[in-house]
């Protein structure tokens, strides 16, 4: 007895434990839904957040300057393990920047030191990504130097060693008069090299050397094309663009821009006077990555950007924007390898970091309390090497997404080569020199445009159908009609998109007048039919009740629609000269695409109608019957009851239906992807397409590099969509809940 009681008690204990476990398990399971939503929200945020992080520069190592003389240039190799320094004695020194596994390197250890030029008179460097340097030697000759690195792998460990190959770059004579060169500029492209120099007798010379293969000997030789520029006075700065097409000479605040033809003919293109009073005297000048922009530093801490813009007199350099780095003179401007980020050094030793496209002031400080004299960035823009007071310092640079700022995403930006500031989305291109254009405005606009046209189409039909189904239709018919319309919601949007793009779009293009006629004739015919039914003899009239109207109208709508389309060629012939499309393009001056907003509006409208219909119908149907019956009993007509009592009571529900529909239209992907041309344009034109946030993600996401700015901006687009729909849905749901509470109290 006692034993069985104990067993029972134990059993009931086990049952209680089970009950508790079930409770906790199920509660946790319920919470998972909330966790899932929060996870999506925070994960999107987590991916997006780094694009708005500011620049940070953290110290790594410092060591004494290797080599002798004054530094003329510093550099780093790809992995930022080895640095190098050119000095004014013509010596090139390679040194270690960090400790490395497999070597005994200490930061600052000299790895290779070599005299590359004797008694140089001038020095220049190419654009960073071209990685060459040149010393001017005596008698107008030039020695090009290219620091090189050799990597080999042993047991999976990479070893890099620096070297230079003097045989590769023989001494080249630049000045036929063999005068000493005091200033030098150099660039190359393939086998062609362009030099610009100032001689000690103040001549400015340009020499384009092009390789040509000799017919007789088969050897390549450099053919020079020498020009003297018509300039007087002393020259402050000399630049050559990497495409070898321009030479820029600065004398005080005057910039003379010469264009160089493929054959080496030099012509003056533009003389640019930088207003001394407006901008201040010029202290330094440099080309931005991509070499389309000239960055000019002024003595008041201002940096101005200038690039070529198409004008009536051809392409001319123009003032674009300015940046402010403190109040003291800008000593030098260093541009990054590929991005539009540039670094400045002020006379007082501060370092500034800026990005042109996004107009971002990223950093302005004395790095590590140092007075910076020289600064260089590694190719991957992860490390900064700074010379200060005969010491070299390396810093870790965190600047992953300088090209993205809130203002750059949502405001007009003046992109290189564009005639004016614009909203542009153009994320990728073939070349490294491409300036990415990340404006979310055109694609957000596209989203709104698509949703708007869809709503124009869906709201009237969806709501009217809901009103009729809930209020006038016989219960038996309602039982069939409601699920039928709701089936449409289940139709895969990929099928709607496919039909819209390949079936509907050509039809609309061919029968545009017919389609417009349908919009006018179908409602007209419905009213005419309604009028006819009220003048019919009584026995007929009794059959055509309001409750049967929907069924009666089906054949009429079909016939009128068919007639309108049959009329279309005739209308086209009579009013539009046989071709509406041409009429619209030529006479009205409106662009006409086959896959346009009209097609999207119709197709997406059909996707949205069931959403609106279903929720609105529920709201109207659940309006308490005593309200409408009371109204009818007081003598109001059915229509009056509907508009004054039922719709008013159900209005929050109808609002939430429209919100839900809007939410669906905003996020829809496949229909817009397939039924538009996906061009990011800013135009309400119904005959042109658009590119929406969602379609943009679907198109570009698979190709974007993980962790890049582009990738994160696409996540931002998804986040924007998430927030959009979250707002709509939450609002709709809250309204609906309140409505439900209200009804239950009635």
């Amino acid at each position: 007895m006692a034993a069985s009681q104990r067993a029972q008690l134990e059993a009931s204990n086990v049952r209680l434990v089970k009950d508790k476990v079930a409770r906790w398990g199920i509660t946790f399971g319920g919470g998972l839904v909330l966790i899932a939503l929060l996870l999506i929200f925070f994960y999107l945020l987590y991916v997006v957040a780094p694009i708005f992080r500011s620049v940070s520069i953290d110290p790594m190592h410092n060591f004494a300057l290797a080599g002798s003389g004054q530094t003329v240039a510093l550099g780093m190799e790809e992995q930022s393990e080895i640095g190098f320094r050119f000095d004014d004695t013509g010596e090139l020194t390679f040194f270690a920047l960090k400790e490395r596994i497999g070597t005994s390197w200490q930061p600052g250890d000299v790895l290779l030191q070599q005299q590359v030029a004797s008694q140089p008179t001038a020095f220049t460097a190419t654009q960073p990504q071209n990685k060459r340097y040149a010393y001017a030697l005596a008698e107008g000759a030039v020695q090009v130097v290219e620091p090189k690195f050799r990597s080999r792998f042993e047991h999976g460990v990479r070893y890099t060693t620096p070297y230079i190959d003097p045989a590769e770059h023989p001494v080249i004579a630049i000045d036929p008069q063999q005068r000493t060169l005091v200033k030098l500029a150099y660039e190359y492209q393939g086998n062609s090299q362009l030099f610009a120099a100032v001689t000690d007798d103040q001549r400015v010379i340009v020499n384009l050397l092009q390789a040509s293969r000799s017919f007789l000997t088969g050897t390549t030789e450099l053919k020079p094309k020498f020009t003297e520029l018509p300039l007087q006075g002393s020259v402050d700065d000399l630049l050559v663009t990497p495409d070898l097409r321009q030479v820029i000479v600065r004398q005080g605040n005057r910039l003379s821009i010469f264009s160089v033809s493929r054959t080496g003919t030099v012509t003056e293109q533009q003389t640019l006077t930088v207003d001394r009073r407006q901008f201040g005297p010029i202290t330094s000048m440099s080309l931005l990555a991509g070499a389309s922009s000239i960055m000019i530093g002024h003595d008041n801490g201002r940096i101005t950007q200038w690039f070529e813009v198409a004008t009536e007199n051809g392409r001319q350099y123009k003032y674009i924007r300015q940046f402010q780095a403190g109040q003291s003179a800008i000593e030098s401007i260093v541009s990054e390898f590929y991005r539009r980020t540039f670094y400045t050094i002020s006379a007082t030793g501060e370092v500034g970091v800026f990005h042109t496209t996004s107009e971002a002031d990223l950093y302005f400080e004395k790095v590590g309390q140092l007075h910076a004299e020289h600064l260089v960035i590694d190719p991957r823009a992860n490390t900064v090497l700074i010379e200060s007071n005969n010491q070299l310092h390396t810093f870790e640079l965190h600047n992953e997404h300088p090209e993205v700022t809130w203002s750059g995403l949502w405001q007009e930006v003046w992109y290189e080569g564009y005639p004016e500031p614009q909203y542009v989305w153009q994320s990728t291109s073939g070349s490294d020199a491409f300036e990415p254009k990340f404006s979310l405005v055109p694609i957000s606009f596209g989203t709104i445009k698509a949703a708007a046209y869809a709503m124009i189409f869906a709201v009237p039909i969806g709501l009217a159908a809901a009103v009729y189904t809930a209020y006038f239709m016989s219960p038996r018919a309602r039982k069939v009609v409601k699920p039928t319309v709701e089936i449409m919601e289940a139709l895969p949007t990929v099928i709607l998109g496919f039909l819209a793009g390949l079936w509907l779009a050509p039809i609309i293009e061919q029968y545009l007048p017919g389609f417009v006629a349908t919009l006018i004739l179908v409602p007209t015919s419905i009213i005419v039919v309604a009028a006819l039914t009220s003048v019919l003899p009584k026995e007929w009239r009794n059959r055509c009740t309001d409750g049967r109207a929907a069924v009666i109208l089906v054949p009429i709508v079909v016939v009128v629609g068919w007639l309108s389309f049959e009329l279309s060629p005739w209308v086209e012939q009579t009013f539009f000269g046989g071709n509406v499309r041409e009429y619209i393009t030529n006479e009205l001056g409106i662009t006409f695409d086959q896959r346009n907003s009209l097609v999207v509006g119709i197709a997406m409208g059909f996707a949205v109608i069931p959403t609106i219909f279903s929720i609105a119908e529920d709201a109207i149907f659940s309006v308490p019957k005593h309200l409408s019956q009371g109204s009818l009993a007081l003598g109001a007509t059915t229509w009056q009851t509907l508009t004054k009592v039922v719709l008013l009571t159900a209005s929050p529900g109808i609002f939430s239906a429209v919100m839900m529909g809007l939410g669906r239209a905003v996020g829809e992907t496949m229909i817009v992807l397939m039924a538009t041309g996906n061009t990011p344009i800013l135009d309400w034109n119904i005959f042109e397409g658009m590119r929406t946030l969602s379609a943009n993600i679907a198109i570009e996401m698979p190709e974007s590099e993980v962790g890049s700015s582009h990738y994160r901006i696409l996540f931002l687009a998804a986040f924007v969509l998430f927030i959009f729909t979250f707002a709509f849905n939450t609002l709709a749901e809250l309204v609906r809940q309140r409505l439900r509470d209200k009804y239950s109290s009635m």
Partner: protein
Amino acid sequence: MNHWFKSGKPYIWLTAGAVSVSLIAVLGLLALIAWRGLSYFWPAAIYELEVTAQDGSTQVIIGEIYDREEVSYERLQESGLAIAGDGDEMLERWLLKVGNRELVPLDFMWVLAPQVVRQDTPKDLAVLERAKDGNFYGYIVDVLENGQSVVTADHSIRDVLAERIERAVQLSEQAADLQQGDIGAINYQLNRLRLERRSLGLEEQLTPAEEQRIQAEETALQQQYQELEKVLFTYREEANRDSVVVRDMRGIDVEIPMYRVLDVAYPNDMGVFSKLGHFFGQVGKFVTEDPREANTEGGVFPAIFGTVFMVLLMSVIVTPFGVIAAVYLHEYAGKNTITRLIRIAVINLAGVPSIVYGVFGLGFFVYMVGGSLDQIFYPEALPSPTFGTPGVMWSAITLAILTLPVVIVSTEEGLSRIPSSLREGSLALGATKAETLWRIILPMASPAIMTGLILAVARAAGEVAPLMLVGVVKSAPMLPVDGNFPYFHLDRKFMHLGFHIYDVGFQSPNVEAARPLVYATSLLLVTVIVGLNLTAIGVRNHLREKYRSLES
């Protein structure tokens, strides 16, 4: 009149018109897809047309009439056609599918109806369905074996051809089986050995003995492979034996190797019943065969398989979570803020655009979770990812989150229909809440859970946008299930019917030729989805009736 307008009658009729328009749209859409999809399988008549061009030259064209349209003379004249006629008048033109893709520059041709001087449908015209270059239209002239004619007086050429085609098809099937089955298995094993060696190397346990073992296995596999390859080559040689000679519309005899030919049909010589037979045969081929010619021809079997597999996987994930969440909301949750938050979360999960799920799935599951899994469990395969790349598992999980609200809403509705007297009765008899739930409530709610699951499956089967990011591909070389251990390969990419429609309809090189196939695929998908939805509605209605009687 004014009074009549005030009565509201015209407005009522206008709202009725909206219902009519919606109905016409739904039914018209379904009818359109059904008509276009089914006509893809129906053997169309092949016409032989003699066309006189404007300059008096005549040309014979053989093909199917694909489309007819009316154009005005003016538009034709504008497009550079020298044709006499009044600008306002319309004339008909036909789009002909002439096939024979390797012989003519375009396999589609516009013909102006008035220029046709003779129009025939000769009974002898044949359509050869080919593995490459699409259909071939023409008259069968001869069947060759090693270059010698095998047509004799006592066998009709059609029988001979049918027999030879069957043989060739069988041979190529055997070859394909061998290639995908045994040879595929050997390749799989070889790859496994390669990974094993790397894995051992990474753990520094690659002893000479191990190395020897692996090498021995590899050599054995290589030998097997060589033997199988020989068999494969004999199959191919065998298949090369026969060929068929066809006279095309230019009147030239073309020899087509038999291994290229998959089927022959004489649509002009078919009665309704043989057409019907052909129709069902084509439907069967469509659902069981692999796609050919960059998906624009052949069947959609891998897409069906991929869709079904992914959806099943998703169901396994979504059902428990959805049911638990619904049970929590209906049976356990108190009336507090957290419950309200969870309800808002459910509504929002249902409303978040599907592409956002795709982005989330790609970033979180594929790159973050998948990437970590690779580092922990599959370091030997790196840098090529195993789970750190879009695949069928991630697609299933992503869609499981997407369809979670569907299951929750439906299950909760089912739970709310169970009369509370049942719960109270069970509790009063001494059952715990968990027992009541398990023994009474869940069994009663199971049809509602079923409904939710069916709706979720229908939703998932039609969803494309997120899948484009997390695992769907244009053409997957291997199915996610095969005969190689561990049989289910959840890391593989898969094909999907919805994506197939997008891909073939919009990304394929020959959209015009592929369009009927897209309609057929759409029909398949729509049938499945509408069928699932109707089932769900049926189950739900049945359920409502059942509890109505319980309540009263």
